């Protein structure tokens, strides 16, 4: 393998892993970061998204429509779960863990009863390119870039819109936010639906690359959890940085020692990282920005007093 193709190989593994971690973790990260609720049914939401997408596409719809059906369908489902169950547990994060675990069991077993042990999958779109001795899936490279695009859309949503401002205010202090006239329950509900839509989107996007079985959610669950834990409370910067760091190790180790070591390395890095920085990347970033701001302010007031 020459240098060029091994660099490409590493880049491919990195982008593939980055896309997977980011896309599968975002829904979980937003629900956790904004609401403090750990959605153990996240993997099953992804599974549901994959099923809806696959079935819609198999019924003859174009893939892009199937994709929309998958994400919005899971959003709708999440909205119903929120109104029926999660809404009663907004202030009880531990109970919400148990409840969402129950939801996940019902969903995976329900899907098994409903659709059987597996359904025929879709073929991966976009074909492949050949570099050196390997073929690479164009679709997976595309997903890596799509992950960045989704992050940008979410960044704009949270930083530039009124919904974003209100949800960030609610995240920081729900009591103050509602005393200022924000309907915090509605913010939570909408945030939960947004998280569900993103989970559905993850399932929809990865549906053509995986076998569609009722237990497929667990593939996503573990890695998205690790990403969120390393990322910390801020769903945007946290997920981005943690996805980047973990993919760097995952990609590098996968290239040299194979997939298993890549996966193991990712977990070891995550454990070490959390040992050193228990609040994850966002805790680190938050402290740094406040420190820089404070220094800037001190500089200003020193300037004034002189």
């Amino acid at each position, binding site marked *: 393998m020459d240098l060029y193709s091994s660099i490409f190989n590493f880049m491919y593994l990195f982008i593939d892993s980055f896309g997977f971690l980011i896309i599968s973790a975002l829904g979980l990260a937003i629900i956790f970061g904004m609401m403090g609720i750990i959605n153990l049914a996240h993997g099953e939401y992804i599974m549901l998204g994959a099923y809806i997408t696959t079935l819609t596409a198999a019924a003859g719809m174009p893939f892009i429509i199937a994709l929309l059906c998958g994400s919005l369908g899971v959003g709708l489902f999440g909205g119903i779960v929120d109104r029926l169950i999660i809404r009663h547990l907004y202030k009880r994060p531990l109970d919400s863990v148990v409840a969402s675990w129950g939801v996940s069991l019902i969903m995976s077993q329900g899907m098994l009863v409903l659709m059987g042990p597996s359904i025929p999958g879709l073929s991966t779109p976009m074909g492949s390119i050949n570099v050196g001795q390997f073929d690479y899936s164009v679709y997976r490279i595309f997903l890596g870039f799509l992950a960045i695009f989704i992050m940008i859309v979410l960044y704009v949503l949270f930083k530039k819109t009124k919904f974003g401002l209100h949800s960030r205010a609610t995240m*920081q202090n729900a009591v103050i936010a509602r005393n200022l006239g924000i309907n915090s329950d509605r913010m939570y509900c909408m945030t939960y639906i947004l998280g569900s839509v993103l989970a559905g989107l993850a399932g929809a996007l990865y549906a053509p690359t995986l076998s569609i079985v009722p237990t497929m959610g667990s593939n996503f669950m573990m890695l998205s959890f690790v990403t969120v834990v390393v990322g910390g409370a801020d769903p945007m910067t946290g997920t981005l940085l943690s996805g980047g760091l973990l993919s760097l190790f995952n990609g590098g180790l996968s290239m040299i020692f194979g997939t298993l070591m890549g996966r193991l390395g990712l977990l070891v890095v995550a454990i070490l990282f959390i040992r050193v920085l228990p609040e994850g990347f966002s805790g680190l970033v938050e402290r740094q920005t406040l420190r820089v*701001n404070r220094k800037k302010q001190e500089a200003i007031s020193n300037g004034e007093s002189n």
Partner: protein
Amino acid sequence: MLKTVKLRAGYGKVMILQGVDFHIGKKEIISIIGRNGVGKSTLMKTLIGEVPVSSGSIEFAGKDCTKLKAYERAQLGMGYIPQGHGVFPLLTVEENLLVGQCINGNKQTTKKHMELVYDYFPRLKERRTQRAGTMSGGERAMLSIARILIGEPSLILFDEPSEGVQPNIVELIGEIILKINADLGVTILLVEQNIGLVQQVSEKAYVIDKGLIAHELDKAMINDNETTKRLLAV
């Protein structure tokens, strides 16, 4: 403007307020004073809707809002400034202000009000892109007041604005309270330990004790240090 009738409220089975009756007229500035732990802050939290009412009623701007949620009361024009100022530390000064526009359901006139509060608090304009978490106690107090003003409230509930703020800023807060009352016709209810601030601004004060309104003081009585000392001494 605001009226409570036999208001009883508290946490779980413990009733902190034991039947509070009081009223504030339009454009009045009224203080609630009392010793520690007699229910002053609980009264404020009950008025905005954070502590549930168990019996009695709250009437605000001619509407019974005993059963309304906190955000609904805020949207009617009730601006609550909590103890410790309650700014959002990771939002910038400007973002903090923008959150305040939900009060009174007012969405159109934000720009005008933004200029108004920057006029009142030029310091906040200098700092508008800075995160609120990096500011001093006094600046946070200013921000918490400005944030309420953006929403054009008809009533402001102040819960100990002097807390964690240096004395010269407390006096400044007093001036601002008088100014917004005079300029904008906002009614103000103030809970305060700092008797200097109470004397500076209030026309009338209620002394709260054991969850009840024990005394009503007029301006002369508030300014009489002997009276206030007697009522507040432990």
